[in-house]
């Protein structure tokens, strides 16, 4: 479970990364292909669009993560809901891009390495733990959202 303090830690540390946001995907994919070169072939040769998507997704996650508890009953569009968006991302990764479950570990490692590199001394144990917990939840969400039945309707809207 991600605590309120961890959510704030994530927001704060992402704010520190913002000035170097452009170099985040460069660092991330360089590290990923260093530790798992076999995944390079899953991406197109031109990585520019992919890199933009990574930063957009991380920014979305950080923003969608933390909101005041007093708004717990608020209606939020599924397009803006962290879990719904990440679940859809998970389905695309397994169904469309055929990304195996094993890939989530090196991706997580590359993400933490990138933050470590980018934040330097600000990458404290708390920051590492918070991002590690967050990535663990995101990857679980993506794996749980795989379309096991092959029908494409796993995250269904339940009829009343």
């Amino acid at each position, binding site marked *: *479970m*991600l*605590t*309120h303090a961890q959510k704030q830690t994530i927001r704060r540390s992402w704010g520190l990364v913002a000035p170097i946001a452009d170099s985040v995907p460069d660092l991330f994919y360089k590290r990923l292909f260093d530790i798992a070169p076999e995944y390079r072939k899953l991406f197109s040769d031109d990585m520019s669009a992919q890199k933009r998507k990574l930063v957009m997704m991380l920014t979305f996650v950080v923003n969608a*993560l933390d*909101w005041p*508890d007093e*708004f*717990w*009953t*608020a*209606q*939020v569009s*599924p397009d803006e*809901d*962290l*879990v*719904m968006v990440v*679940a859809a991302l998970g389905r695309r990764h397994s169904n469309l891009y055929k990304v195996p479950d094993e890939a989530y570990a090196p991706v997580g490692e590359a993400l933490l390495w990138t933050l470590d590199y980018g934040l330097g001394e600000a990458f404290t144990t708390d920051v590492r733990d918070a991002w590690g917990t967050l990535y663990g*939840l995101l990857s*679980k*969400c993506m*794996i*749980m*959202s795989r379309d*096991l039945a092959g029908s494409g309707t*796993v*995250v*269904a*809207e*339940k009829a*009343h």
Partner: protein
Amino acid sequence: MMGSLSNFTLRDVLDVVGLSRQYTVVELHGNDGSSLASINLKGGHLVQSASDQLDPREALGRALQAPKWCTFHVFRLDDIDTYQSFGQLAELLADEAALTTAAAAVVAEAASMPSPAPAAAQTTSEPPPAPAPAAPIAPHAAPASQPRAVPAESAATATPAPVTSGVSLAVASPQGGVGKTTIALNLGICLAHRGLRVIIIDADVNGDLLSLINARGSAEIGTYDLLHGSGQLERALRRTVVPGLQVLPAAGRQLPALALMSTDRSAKWRGLIRQAMGMADIVLVDCPAGMSHAALEILQSVSHVLGVFQAETVASRSFEMFERGLAALAERDRPSVVGVVVNMLRENKASARAYEKLVAGDTAGRVLKTVINRSEAFEEATAAATPVRLHGGDASRKTAFTFDNLASEVASRLPLPQAPADSTGSFML
């Protein structure tokens, strides 16, 4: 989302879904596709679905014990107009984790003791069976030579309470909304008026007694905190304007810890009730509705039970469920039935017929002569945040008289101490 609990724990699933702001249901299924539990969440809060009869915290507690062969399915539901929160998921899970750790420590401690390990702190991964497992101990006032599951009892309740010959009376019903809390409260007042020292233990968080009299804010420590092991009974009891009557609120400032809903509390209930009996002539326990595990835990800890039924067509079926619930308890753990009271009798044929049917089927003479009519006095009293027995007004006086009769009838069936002669409220001076 879907998967198997052999790949993800339910905590994993809840940790993920708890981040969603959608109205979501997590369903657990057995390998035959049967539904085992469903947990409704909204914005990180546990909420109740309209169709769910079980307390959501109890459902969550049970779900967390689901075996690994279960599958989970997550659905998004359309938002509804209003939500009732049963606590923040993060806090409920943290409570549960802390108590699971504590329960494991208790089991380890018990295992290192020469006496047999208690059945109380079970950490089985199987879902609990519907009826409470028969505890290996008799219900009331055990001799000192037969310590009951002492390691599982809280610090507050582990103190040996004086052995008394007092009476503990559960007010129970297989159905919700039949007026149990109202009857427990007004019966308590009438018994106190008869000069008895009375403690009402509220065990029903949903039908909270203090909310009935608009006194919720005065509760600091509740029944479930004491069962949890935090707080002292003496401090938790709230005095009332009625001399001799004290009330133990169901919940204190916080909602009951989740894990209490998922572990066997029989030993803790026995400890708490025994301790209260050391301080009163009669302890009334307002049970949660239903003959569920939660209610049966209490029923096997009291000496007597009073059943409450609504005068309606299904009353006789409720009566059967009541009898079957009691029969599920081991004989030595079964409380004596002091009687059953018919509540909310209306002036119509259906209501009268339901009552007659109940009486006709009552070969054991359990249905009490005192019947409580449906009356606007209850609404008036509730609006005035006053127990109906103490509320003025013509309708209330009539109802108050009925409760005095009920107290008289119940008291005549209980081994209560003789009340002082001057406190019986005799009309003639």
